[in-house]
């Protein structure tokens, strides 16, 4: 596991120009995960995003988990329809994805993290 984190940090140095658009090696990730109470999809999403973050973004991410049942206004503000929904606030551009995040590959592409 540590190995992969390392490579993730290393690779950009090698692949200069291309990697800049693909990955943000040093930048801090700010993520929002919208869930709805303790629905199975939501619980799975929390689990999945936690493990992905720990694995690929350790020490440089901020994850906010929002329960729309508790804070429905935030669902409105962020124009949430489907749940669970993950929003990458930073680094820009903002990226949105929906689902329980079990498709790790797709999540990584969405977050622009090099595997």
């Amino acid at each position, binding site marked *: 596991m540590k190995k992969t984190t390392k490579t993730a940090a290393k690779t950009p140095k090698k692949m200069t120009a291309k990697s800049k658009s693909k990955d943000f090696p040093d930048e801090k990730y700010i993520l929002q995960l919208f869930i709805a109470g303790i629905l199975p999809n939501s619980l799975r999403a929390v689990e999945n995003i936690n493990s992905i973050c720990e694995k690929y973004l350790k020490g440089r991410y901020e994850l906010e988990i929002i329960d729309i049942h508790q804070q429905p206004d935030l669902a409105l503000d962020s124009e949430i*329809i*489907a749940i669970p929904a993950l929003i990458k606030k930073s680094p820009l551009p903002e990226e949105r994805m929906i689902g*329980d995040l079990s498709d790790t590959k797709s999540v990584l592409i969405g977050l622009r993290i090099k595997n």
Partner: protein
Amino acid sequence: MVKAKKSKTPDAKFPKAITGIAGLDVLTNGGLPKNRPTLIVGNAGCGKTIMAMEFLIRGIELFDEPAVFMAFEEKTDELILNVKSLGFDIRKHRENGKIYLEYVKVNPDERKAGQYDIEGLFVRLGLAIDKVKAKRVVLDSLDTLFNGFDPAILRVEFKRLLTWLKDKNVTAIITGESGSEFYTRNGIEEYVADCVMVLDNRVINQVTTRRLRIVKYRGSIHGNNEYPFLIDEKGITVLPVISEGLSQKSSSDRISCGVESLDEMLDGKGYFVGSSVLVSGTAGTGKTSVAAAFAESVCNNKQRCLFCAFEEAPNQVIRNMKSIGLHLNSRVKSGQLSFYYARPTLQNLELHFIAIKKIIKEFDPSVVILDPITNLMTEGPNSDVRGMLTRFVDYLKVEQITVLFTAAITVGSIERNPSDEGISSMVDTWMMVQDIEVDGERTRSLCVMKSRGMKHSNQVKRFEISSSGITISKIVDNIDDTKKRKLKEHKNLSTTKA
């Protein structure tokens, strides 16, 4: 023997939410199913959004029921602007917290990474309903969701949504695009079991008519046919056939024809109030003059008259009638006489009647004149026309409005088949004007073909139009035998009731 338990009367009334849309409540026998969802299906541009919006606005204005409008297609500002042309002032209701509009943006580019549902929509809808304590909700249109999400998931979610809406105790309208395989493109109707309406916008002979049909209404009787509807600056009007019963009162009051000698032919008193009068005749025999004389006399008696001209423009009618001593212009100015002028082909016949009805509601005339009805007949197949005309006459009778229509006929058609017009059964008084030859001169004549409920003249009279108006006199006696015979034929015709 055990006595069967007396069951409590189960016929508790099916609860309905009155839509407030003209005609629709008659058609649905009292409105949409209360606290249940109704589906409105239709193609683009057939009036789904407007109908849904009017349902909400009327709910606010008539019953003080707050409303939520979830728009999936239009942004709220656009929506407000679009329905403003129909006289719906949403901004005002919005400020008063009576309506809550929300634009639900569906983003088809969202990455899918696993299982999801649309709980977010539920939460937002719930929030919206709580915000204004809504009793009426519109979702316009759910089909948009299919652009962004997996249909298999949506199907499951729609089922949940509709049950959820019922639990929320709101009367909801859901709109959907029509499809080829199902009523809706994505088969939403499967989930909305209670009431389904289909709207349609059809072009026949270059005339567009919007039509509405109730496909399904569980637990209620409803009209089954397609009914035309109109969208204008006052919203939607549906014209159901069943709206006018024959329960009208029959007045025994009389109203003068405007020509003294004509009154004399009709038992000396003129038409019955609230009856229907037909003046038929060949071209140029003076039908419009009879109509105009009636209009003038109505105005003289300080009552209002609506003159629907389908052949001549109002100014032309006014000018022409001036030549026989009728100054209609001053009547228009004093607000007693109002003209409705439209080319028959401009709209569908039914829509003419809807338009006329609207004017009647505002203007409140005691007499309506349709000049001539035959011009309308060029529209659509005849059976349709007759049905619509009957309905219209019934409506006027219910309102106790006297109606006079003129009809142009071709020479000889009456001799062949007196009921050729197909409208004689619905008129109470039928007068015919025609040209006959008397003493080597073409003379206008007038006879009363029938007049229900009164003693009327059976004579063919000389009918003269001069600068001082209409005069009716006896036809002079010194005519030769052939003419006499011809005249006798007409006389026979007028008394064929026997």
